[in-house]
């Protein structure tokens, strides 16, 4: 299997997973393309650039530096501010596991967590099984052990103003924290310990209001955990997918763009507008999905009776096409909608100046 994955990736180095990629992976669990590319550790961003569909997934220097400054402030003086905001006492040990080799770090993590009673454990290295693959997680997180419980502490630099924060950012932080909770529980399980020691309540530490002063809030991630578990288990087994691919197929970035595009066509995608903020390949997949109702978003597709192509929608609405038996209801609805729409437009913009479908009142 490993060699097959290496072959798919070609000469490039494998991309490592982190909580964000796993969260995004489960965000579109039906997409085989993403599952395969991620399992093989292919750099999707460079792939997208190489085939002429770059996306913008950069991070602003300003945001990075503020995030780093906030974290440094919390950890300064042996984590004084962090202890304060967590309500942890000063005698609590602090251990930073950041060291160079992966295996070392993972062993360290296992050892430290196995007998953690009361400690702040920084930069642990965790593993998680994703679609039949063991992936390493290098979370930017602290595990907070106290009273026999382990709690995930996530430091984020977005502000909480009057108890409110950007909902998209909170939601992303909650999903990422849930990935860590899951990985920590897996680890304890493997150690023969009780996984429920890891709390489903995670602590989010953010700047309060417009200051740099930290505030800690508790997020209950039970919902995110169960969704995550369900979606991880539903992720089509990558092994099966890869076995079904033609022999010799490769996404080596040294290949010509044309060859890579041909290769991509071998793995089925499932594009949705949500991909645009979650997957580096989205501009390419969007282009491929043009003319499909899915590209317009799930609510639109559902309102169109689940018909998959835009052309077909219009053909059914205009009665140019005989609906299949299971389309009969949708077709009747679409015909009624078109009749009502045309009637209202005609009454408002009477002929002969009635705008054609292509114009509108602009």
């Amino acid at each position, binding site marked *: 299997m490993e060699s097959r994955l290496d072959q798919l990736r070609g000469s490039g180095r494998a991309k490592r997973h982190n909580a964000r990629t796993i969260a995004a992976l489960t965000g579109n669990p039906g997409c085989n393309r993403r599952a395969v590319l991620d399992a093989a550790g292919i750099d999707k961003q460079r792939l997208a650039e190489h085939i002429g569909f770059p996306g913008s997934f950069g991070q602003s220097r300003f*945001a990075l530096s503020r995030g780093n400054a906030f974290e440094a402030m919390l950890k300064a003086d042996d984590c004084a501010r962090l202890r304060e905001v967590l*309500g942890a006492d000063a005698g609590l040990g602090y251990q930073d596991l950041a060291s160079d080799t992966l295996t070392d770090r993972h062993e360290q993590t296992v050892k430290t967590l196995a007998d953690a009673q009361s400690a702040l454990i920084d930069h642990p290295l965790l593993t998680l099984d994703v679609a039949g693959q063991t992936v390493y997680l290098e979370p930017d997180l602290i595990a907070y052990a106290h009273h026999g419980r382990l709690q995930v502490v996530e430091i984020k630099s977005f502000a909480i103003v009057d108890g409110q924060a950007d*909902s998209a950012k909170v939601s992303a932080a909650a999903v990422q924290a849930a990935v860590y909770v899951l990985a920590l529980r897996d680890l304890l399980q493997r150690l023969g310990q009780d996984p429920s020691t890891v709390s489903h309540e995670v602590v989010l530490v953010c700047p309060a209001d417009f200051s740099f002063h930290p505030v800690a809030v508790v997020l209950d991630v039970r919902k995110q955990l169960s969704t995550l578990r369900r979606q991880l288990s539903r992720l089509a087994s990558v092994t099966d997918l890869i076995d079904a691919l033609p022999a010799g197929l490769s996404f080596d970035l040294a290949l010509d763009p044309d060859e890579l595009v041909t290769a991509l066509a071998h793995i089925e995608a499932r594009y949705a*507008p949500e991909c645009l903020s979650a997957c580096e390949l989205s501009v390419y997949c969007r282009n491929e999905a043009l003319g499909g109702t899915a590209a317009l978003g799930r609510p639109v597709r559902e309102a169109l009776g689940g018909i998959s192509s835009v052309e077909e929608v219009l053909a059914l609405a205009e009665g140019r096409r005989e609906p299949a038996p299971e389309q009969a209801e949708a077709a009747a609805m679409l015909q009624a909608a078109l009749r009502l729409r045309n009637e209202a437009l005609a009454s*408002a913009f009477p002929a002969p100046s009635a705008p054609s479908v*292509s114009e509108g009142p602009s």
Partner: protein
Amino acid sequence: MSTLTALARAQAVVAGRAQPIATVRHLHVHDHPLVLIPLVMAGEANAPLAAMVGTDPARPRLLTVGQPRNRDERFAFAADLAATLVPYVDSFATDTEDVAVDRGRDVRRRYVDAPQIWVPNPAGVDFLRLFGRSTRFRKTDGDNPVPAAVPLLGRWLTFFANTAEMPGSALLVNAVQALGLHWVTGQSSAEDAQFGVQLAWIEAGAAAAREAENGPVAGPATDPDFDNRVLAPLIERSAPDLPRVLHDLLLPTWDRMWRTLALLRRLPVGERVRLRWDADRDAFTAFAQTLAEGGPPQPRRDGAVAAAARLQRLESAASRYAVQRAFDDPLVLAEYRLSGAAFAGTVTLANPDRVDDSGKRPVLRPRIMVHTGEPVRVEPGASLTSPARPSQKARVISINPAGDGVDVLLELSGGMGRRLVAEPGSVPAVGERLILTTLSEAYRPGGALPEPAETPWTHGGPPVPFADQPDPSDQPDQQEGDVVAAARGDLQEAGAEFVTGTGRVLP
């Protein structure tokens, strides 16, 4: 998403052009709006970087902050913005008119016009709300004094941001939403949030829209790549050409804002838009009065009673807005016809002189028969309204199959004058085409709420008067465990929000 709107999106894909989903303009567009395009520094909590602002398309005013992390520069920016925004707003607090209240027994005054601020997108509104929050409590004396205009700006911005939540209000408008109310594009609504792209779909079509995707952002967030390549070096060396760079970045959006206004002005205005603008003028008048009387700044959070009352107002505004749009616009009403909450038919019989004398007094109760081929999902006894005669009620007496559809027998009341003979034209005549709907403009009073001072302890008790509150501008202020947050939503739904309540101190 209604099937009608979804169908329009499908048509837009095939035509390669945006398609109309309204036949009238559902929004008051001011003759003298103020356009404001804010830009913020990435990563910071609401640190303004620049704004382009003004009332004249030919003369945009650029405000910039050389070092966005510097507190003094931030408040100098606020004072600068106030210097444009406050005089604009004040210029409407002049002429008043009398409005009859209490059935004509009393009058109140209302400004004859009100300000209207335009920002590019919903995130622009969010920026103004937060900027209002960060400035309205500032002190003009004491330790860290700010210019007097700063807290005043904060209170106005908070006022505008609050009205923007009220469905149908047009005091603070965002262009993306205003366009989306009238046209759909051939892309997803998530992609429509990019103002330049959405406008390109309407003005020029799909190809131009793809081009626009790489164009400058409409703010308030900047493009990370722009931050790293252009902005960071400029800010680091306090470069004098920073204003010029930001001017060039903002100018395309500035032009698009005015083109959007022109585009919307070309649509005929809906009849009931004026009613909503009247309500906006009322809100403006009331707030200007509060300020003049020296009222305290808006609280950081509403108390329980105020929050419940606000929710009630939002809900009734939402339903009123939906009904008004349907009555103003046959294309919006068509959505209700599709779902069976409205139907169109032809009057086949009419008895305009029918008088019901079974009660104490004889009353005029004409009956009409309407034949329709559309689905009718109403029961006998239901009360219907026709947008053509909104003050007239039509009670359903019976529904019977007839030919290819149904005959609906209706009894009319109201809107026919005070006598026992209907005024000419007030009863639909045989042959007239009619649309009837279960929607109604009738006023529905909300439930009664206690006075704020009587807030039950289960809801936090009476709010603390402003003077007794700890000064919220003294940081830190959120520590005492009054916030415990929980995230809502699952992985598909990017919509977590903080649920606040009495909490617990960590851990």
